[in-house]
Each structure stands twice: as C-alpha cells, then as structure tokens.
C-alpha cells in the first residue's frame, strides 16, 4: 500500500485510539471544572477498575458485560470515597497541595493493585475476537476499535444529556459556575462534588475497560493513555467537554500519523510536543474561553 493510500486506515485507527484518550480527558475535565483539582489518579483508578472487572470475570465467572458493569459500579464507589476521604479533608488547600493529594492517591491505588494482582500482564478475553473485522472502502475496522469509538460517542452523548437535561446535571453546572451562590440556592455542593468524582471515575474506568482487552491488563497500562488524556484535556482547554472530546480525537490521529509516517518508537513524545505547541500558541485551549488569572 502506498503511503497516501494508507491514510484513511491511519486516520481510523487514530480515531479509535483517540476515543480512549477522549474518555480520560472528559473524566479529568469534569473534575477540574467543578472542583479545580487536577486528578493525577484518574489513570490508575481506571487501571484498578479494569483489574476489578477482570477479577469479576475470572473469579466470579461473570460474562464480560456484566463484569464491566460491576467494575464501573466499583469505580463510582472508589471515586466517591476518594473525594469524601481525601479531597474534602484538605485544610486550606493550595494548588500544589491538591495535586500532591491526588498524586498520593495515585501511588496508593497503583501500589495496592500491583501488590494484589502482581506485575505480570494478564489477558482479558472479551466476546469480540481481534480477528473480527469489517472492511469499508479498503479500511480495515476491527470490531474492538469500532466498539471503542461507539462507547466514547455514547458516553459523550449521555454526559451532554445528563448535564443539560437533568436536575443533577444542572446542580453540577451551577456548582461549577459559582460555588457559594449554588450553596445559597440550596444545592448540596459537597455532595455534588462527590457525585462528580464518582461520575469521572466511571468515565475513566470505561476507558480502562476498553484498553484492557485491546492490550493486556497490567499495572502500568494506563500511564500512557493518562498522559495523552492530559494532553487532550489541555488541548481542549481544561474546562470544555466538547474540547476534551475533540482534543482526544486530535491527539489520537496526530499520534498515529506520526507513528505511521515518521517513527513508531517515539510516538509517546507526541502528546508532550502537542501540549507545548498548544500552550505556546493558544494557552486557553481550543474550545475554552480565554483564561485570565484573577489577582
């Protein structure tokens, strides 16, 4: 195949990879814009969720879908506990302090999962075989990749509906815009923040459950997707949901183009370069209002 003819294939694979990054980015963005905490534990919470799903499948003998749903329920509890036990307890939190708390949470989760399940990679078998493909116009679409795109699209649509049409979503948006006033209006802002963490853990966990079957389940599995999720979130402007989704797709596609046409070995450098470029040109991100610091 000549290099230009491979372009649709590269774009499609990039979009599939990007949908996972978009999910991670969405999880980070909804936490960041409600509580102004950058959650460095997002990736490893997703890793833990995937392991729990695997445990439901192996030890509990559940089918993949049931185990995934159970694991997402676990993720919600994990996220809510993290907010309730750690973030809420911080006294006069500074930006550095909050970052360090989430880093500490990340280390605890990482250490716990790799102690419990060991470091060796495990396979996660799902009903879709890697050989199941659909060929459309010369582009080979594996069903796993299609599933990743479908899940991402579904989650994004559900999130938009939830935030814009439901009462809980309204409370979340109100808390984000003005916490004291939301509180005066009778919104239990702390409970909303706990809900946001639970929701983010579920969204991030769904990304983990997509990465697990595509590769192997191991303690380091989410470090790379987390970095790219960060890059996607920064690209989209940290506070914009649509921006995070778009950023994820862009990072995935750019990375795959770089991997195909330039070098596979240095693919991981791409998100860093994209962040630097973005911040040099337009620090506020693609789809966010201009970021001005209050003095």
């Amino acid at each position, binding site marked *: 195949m000549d290099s230009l003819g491979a372009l649709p294939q590269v774009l499609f694979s990039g979009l599939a990879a990007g949908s996972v990054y978009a999910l991670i980015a969405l999880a980070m963005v909804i936490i960041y814009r409600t509580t102004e905490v950058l959650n460095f534990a997002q990736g490893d919470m997703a890793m833990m969720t995937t392991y729990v799903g695997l445990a439901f499948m192996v030890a509990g003998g559940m089918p993949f879908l049931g185990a995934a749903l159970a694991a997402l329920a676990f993720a919600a509890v994990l996220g809510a506990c993290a907010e309730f036990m750690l973030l809420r307890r911080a006294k006069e939190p500074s930006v550095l302090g909050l970052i360090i708390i989430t880093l500490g949470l990340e280390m605890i989760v990482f250490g716990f999962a790799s102690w419990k399940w060991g470091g060796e990679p495990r396979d996660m078998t799902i009903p879709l075989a890697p050989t199941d493909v659909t060929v459309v116009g010369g582009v080979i679409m594996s069903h796993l990749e299609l599933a990743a795109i479908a899940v991402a699209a579904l989650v994004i649509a559900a999130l938009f509906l939830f935030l814009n049409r439901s009462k809980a979503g309204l409370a979340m948006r109100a808390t984000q815009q003005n916490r004291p006033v939301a509180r005066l209006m009778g919104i239990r802002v702390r409970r909303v923040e706990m809900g946001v963490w639970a929701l983010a853990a579920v969204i991030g966990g769904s990304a983990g459950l997509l990465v697990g079957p595509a590769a192997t389940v191991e303690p380091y599995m989410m470090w790379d997707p987390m*970095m790219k999720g960060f890059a996607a979130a920064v690209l989209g402007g940290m506070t914009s949901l649509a921006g995070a989704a778009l950023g994820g797709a862009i990072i995935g596609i750019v990375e795959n183009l770089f991997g195909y046409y330039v070098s596979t070995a240095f693919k991981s450098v791409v998100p860093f370069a994209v962040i630097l470029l973005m911040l040099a040109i337009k620090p506020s991100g693609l789809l966010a209002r201009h970021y001005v610091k209050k003095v």
Partner: protein
Amino acid sequence: MDMKRSYYEDLRLFSTLPLSLWLAACAIGALAAPFLFGNYLLYVFGYIAINVIVAIGLNILVGFTGQISLGHAGFFAIGAYATVLLANAGLPILLALPAAALIAAAFGFLLGLPALRLEGPYLAVVTLGFGLAVENIFAKAAIFGGATGPAVPAFDVAFFPGFSREQNLYALIVVIAFAALLAVRNLMRTRTGRAFVAIRDSDVAAACAGVDLTWYKTLAFAVSAFFTGIAGGLFAFHLGQVDPTSFNLMLSILFLAMVVIGGVGSILGPVLGAVVISLLNLKLKGLKMADFSEIPLFGPDIAAFLGRYFMETGMANIQFIVYGAILVLIMLFEPLGLYGLWIRAKRYWRTWPL
C-alpha cells in the same frame, strides 16, 4: 519561622549556635564515615546524599519559587546519561559531572520558558509530559544505549591514596551534598533567592516590585535542574549502570515526596525528607510476605490473611502505598511537613507550661 529582630539575623548563614554545632557534627560524622563503616553502609549513605542533592535542588523550584515539577526524573536522567556519555567520550569524570549538570540546566531553562505562561495544573502537566518524553527517548534511541543503557565507565578519581573506589566515590558525593546545601542557603540570602521567594508569594506583586519574571522563573528551573543533573551523574557511578526505565513518573513523584515530607520552603526540611524516603526505599524494597508475621500479637494471622489475598511477587509495590499514604497524610494534617512538626514542637516547649 522564628521572628527576626534585626536585619542582621536574616543575613546570618546559620540562625542559631546549636544549629551550626549540629551541622558541624553532621559534617564531621559524614566525612569520618569512610573510616568507620563498611562498603554497604557507605552505599546507603551515598544513596541518601544523592537524594539530598536532588531534594534541595527541587526545593528551590517547589519550595522557594512556588512552581510545580513532576518531571525531575527527566533532569536526573539527563544528568546521568550526559555524565556517562561524556566520560565515555574521554572527558575526565570531574569535568563530565559539571558539564552534564550544565546540560541538564540548559534543558531546565528550556522547560522554564513555557512555565512563564503557565501555572499550577498546566505546569504540572507540561513537566509530567517532559519527564515521560525524556524517559521514552532514552529508552528507545539507539545512540543512548537502548533499553539497557550505556556502559558506565569505572569511577577512577582518587582523592586519597589509601581510599578504595567506593570510599572515593562516597567522599565526592558527600562533599558535593554539603557544598549544595551551603550553596542553596547562600543563594536564598541573595537578591536572586529573594526574587524567587517574592515570585512564590505573589508573582504579580513581584513583577510590580521590579522582579523580572522571565529571567527568574527560568533561572529557578535551570538552577534546580543543575542540582538534579549533578545528582543524576553521581547516581550513575553509584549504581554502576544506567537503566532508562528507572527514571519514570514514580521517581519524579518520589523526589517531590522528599520535599513535601520534609517541608516545602525550608532549607533543612528537604534534607530530612530525603533521608526518610531513602531509608524507607531501601527498607521496603526487600520486604517479604513473611516479614508480616513478626508484627507482635496478630503477626501470623496478618501474614496468613495477606498471603491469601495478595501476591508475593508484588510485595515491592507496598512502598508506593506507604509513600502515597505519607503524602496524603502530610498534606491533610501538616502541610509544612516534618519541618512544621519541629517548629510546632519548639514553640510548644518554649512557652511550656503555659
């Protein structure tokens, strides 16, 4: 955090007489160690001293200038690789070390440039990306030795004729550690150091007072990277090999943990933090499941319970749980770290029994 009564108190190198005596005792003890202890203890002390250099270097950035870095493992790696490659190219080791540190400082300066426009979370993401990118490049590029890393030359500097190789290396590490400590203490008494602190407290106010933010923020990154780079070079000789995968995100967090546990923004706090984390690191790495049965009272039951639900092969990862828990607890209960505890204890006893 004691009250300063005159300007001259602020200018003194060491604030109190007991403190200078303690530091002198520590210095004498550290320098006498090669004559007293065997090679393993020298290895441990050397490891601690290398981490002390990193911690006080990182503290310049995090504690004094108020910028976040999650990429210091990257500077550490650059220092290690540059030292080894320069030494392999024929440069004497004593020249390769500062040269490598300058290279790391140059990268610090470059990373500091975007830091001008960024703060808080954005800076954390950029430095995190930097650390991961550096690790990735070193592990994948053939000119850096690939996955096994370059061969480290033998440490051939002989300070004292009677010293073995380990004793010579230890002497160099300790001398550099103390020099770094003095350098940072002095730096914080200068115009530059005060500009750093002014930026930490309020960069807008600092700019209004005439502090050149561009210059001082990038300088803070460069100075911090310089210390970390020199520590990285020493680490390559200390370990005798360079493993690209060891310079990962966890190492960056570990460096940050040293500063945070010791106490951000104090001089001796990070030293204490580096000692604590280094000792914990050495202790926890070799932990076995059977060690739990030595806990008094319920030991065997705990070991049996853990043996049923956890993997023996994953035991080394307990260290991450411990560091994570320490980080979280410090941030929740004593944001100034061990140094804060010390200050509080001192205040309590000063007014005791009131």
